[in-house]
């Protein structure tokens, strides 16, 4: 289907089902129950899942296929966000032109940075991209204040021109982002018994874009171009002596992944029309590297899983505080309760990075192929057990 083989079609369908039914899947606990804080099915967080999923899918096209580790991809995300917000300020609140501009501008930006950075490979390439990203961050933070509004961040105001829209709505407030009149923030709430499921327009736009981005990445992975990118990772020497010019291949991969990052940035601004320099900081670049490796670099679905995993932990673990812990461990004797809370305390709230760090370490050490490898191992184990059962029953039959 869609020019994909069976296995890839199945994967696309799985991702489609997961994203389209996310409001149900991520909301397994009834509202008001003790477990409700583990629910992730609210629009803001779901949007972040898919937007970072798109970011990581794009990053994986560069890192997973060619092996070039960029440490500055957040720069493209930031450029995408600024472009989108400028489109909201100048043209209209429609998200389509904003997203198109962010993809185009970040693509150009990636062409420029890639052209210079790709003159080197390995660690030098990583350092060059990191340097460019930090330069972009500092430009956005201070030097280019007229364009980026410095440390405050770029925001919409009541006196923006918005040629094709209105500067202010009838009641004097800033208009909201929309897709041809369909407001991004509008949410339909479905109440089923104790559960409340939220269906948000913005989330579904992001989810559809994610599906398109994922489909495109499958096509790239399975194309002759994708095979050449894997060949770049495997042996550049042989590439050169086989009449292939590696430079345009790596540059094309860099620009494509930069455009994915720009798309993610544009969507981020479309959901919440502001852009700040912190989006370009090196920690943000590092985060997408973590997502890709945690999920499984070079696999199709890995980056999406990694992005979901990290964003879930960031949002859920960081919300657990000592009061919540005391509630959980209230059944214990007083002294023991305090002790357990004291032990767990560094790993929650602001300390969630510690939990993430431990998980990342465990995955890299025991599952170098990321969460995808974990899934494959479980699959093999289940299959192995089944086969064992079959073979034991098969050997039994003749004896009877």
């Amino acid at each position, binding site marked *: 289907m869609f020019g994909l083989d069976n296995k890839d079609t199945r994967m696309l369908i799985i991702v489609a089902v997961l994203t389209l039914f996310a409001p149900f899947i991520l909301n397994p606990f009834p509202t008001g129950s003790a477990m409700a804080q583990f629910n992730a099915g609210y629009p803001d967080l779901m949007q972040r899942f898919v937007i970072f999923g798109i970011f990581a899918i794009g990053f994986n096209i560069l890192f997973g296929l060619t092996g070039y580790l960029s440490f500055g991809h957040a720069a493209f995300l930031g450029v995408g966000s600024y472009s989108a917000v400028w489109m909201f300020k100048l043209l209209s609140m429609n998200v389509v032109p904003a997203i198109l501009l962010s993809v185009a501008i970040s693509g150009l930006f990636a062409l420029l940075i890639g052209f210079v950075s790709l003159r080197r490979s390995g660690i030098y390439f990583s350092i060059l991209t990191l340097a460019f990203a930090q330069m972009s961050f500092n430009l956005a933070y201070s030097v280019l204040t007229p364009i980026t509004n410095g440390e405050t961040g770029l925001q919409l105001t009541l006196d923006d021109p918005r040629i094709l829209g209105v500067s202010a709505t009838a009641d004097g407030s800033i208009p909201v982002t929309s897709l041809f009149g369909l407001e991004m923030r509008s949410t339909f709430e479905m109440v089923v018994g104790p559960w409340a499921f939220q269906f948000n327009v913005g989330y579904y736009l992001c989810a559809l874009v994610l599906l398109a981005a994922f489909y495109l990445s499958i096509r790239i992975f399975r194309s002759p171009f994708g095979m050449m990118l894997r060949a770049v990772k495997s042996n550049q020497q*042989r590439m050169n002596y086989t009449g292939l010019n590696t430079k345009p291949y790596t540059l094309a991969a860099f620009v494509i992944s930069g455009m994915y990052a720009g798309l993610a940035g544009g969507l981020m601004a479309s959901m919440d029309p502001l852009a700040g320099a912190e989006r370009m900081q090196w920690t943000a670049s590092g985060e997408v590297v973590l997502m890709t490796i945690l999920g499984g670099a070079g696999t199709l679905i890995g980056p999406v899983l990694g992005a979901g995993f990290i964003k879930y932990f960031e949002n859920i673990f960081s919300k657990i505080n000592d009061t919540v812990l005391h509630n959980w461990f209230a059944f214990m004797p007083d002294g023991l309760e305090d002790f357990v809370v004291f032990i767990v305390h560094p790993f929650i709230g602001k300390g969630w990075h510690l939990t993430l760090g431990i998980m990342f370490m465990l995955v890299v050490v025991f599952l170098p192929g990321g969460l995808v490898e974990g899934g494959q191992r479980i699959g093999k184990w289940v299959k192995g057990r089944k086969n064992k059962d079959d073979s034991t029953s098969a050997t039994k039959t003749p004896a009877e």
Partner: protein
Amino acid sequence: MGILEVKNVGKRFGGLQALGDVNLSVKENTVHAIIGPNGAGKSTLLNCLVGKLIPDTGSVMFDGQSVLGRKPFEINQMGISRVFQTPEIFGDLSVLENMMIPCFAKRDGAFSLNAISSVPAQKDVLEKAEAMLEEMNMADKRHMHSASLSRGDKRRLEIGMCLSQEPRLLLLDEPTAGMARADTNNTIDLLKEIKEQRDITIAIIEHDMHVVFSLADRITVLAQGTPLVEDDPQNIRGNPKVREAYLGESA
């Protein structure tokens, strides 16, 4: 006039004159061996032919065109393929994929942004790669991870990859270095077969005299960066100058 004409090529690395004044002419559809003791400049010469090094002086003409100043991939597209001393293949890819890449390079050139069509849909490339694997007797290994092939099979695959580009000149850099006797003999048989069945010129650098004398039509002996003699194999065997270069004055 040979297909490859090397004229007055010199190359200096700091204080070391690696190549003095090399003249070499490789005739079309022959096997030309370049031999010489360690440090004679064989590999330097080869690197000057494929664009890895640029000689300080002289000219290298392939089929009437200069190769100097061109990048390795451009020289390859002109029709010169190179086999390395240690087999250079795409270790992370399957054997079939390894064979498809040179077929793509032949069909689509040095770069093509063919990012939407799928690999299995490229029937012509797939057929060509399969046929070449058949010819190399490696069809049963097509789905193997190429890094897990034996040394001899890696060499076969690399030669097959070069041949699938239909080169006019095949350069072999010590193709049997570090091989067991059986693998060496297999490689010799393979090269003999290639020589008989194809319109191809082969230039080979080799240490192993057994390989050289079973394949070469013409031999150039290099010593200290300059060609000592160029002659037919039977004359090289008895040449006192060659013995001297290999074994020293006392011999």
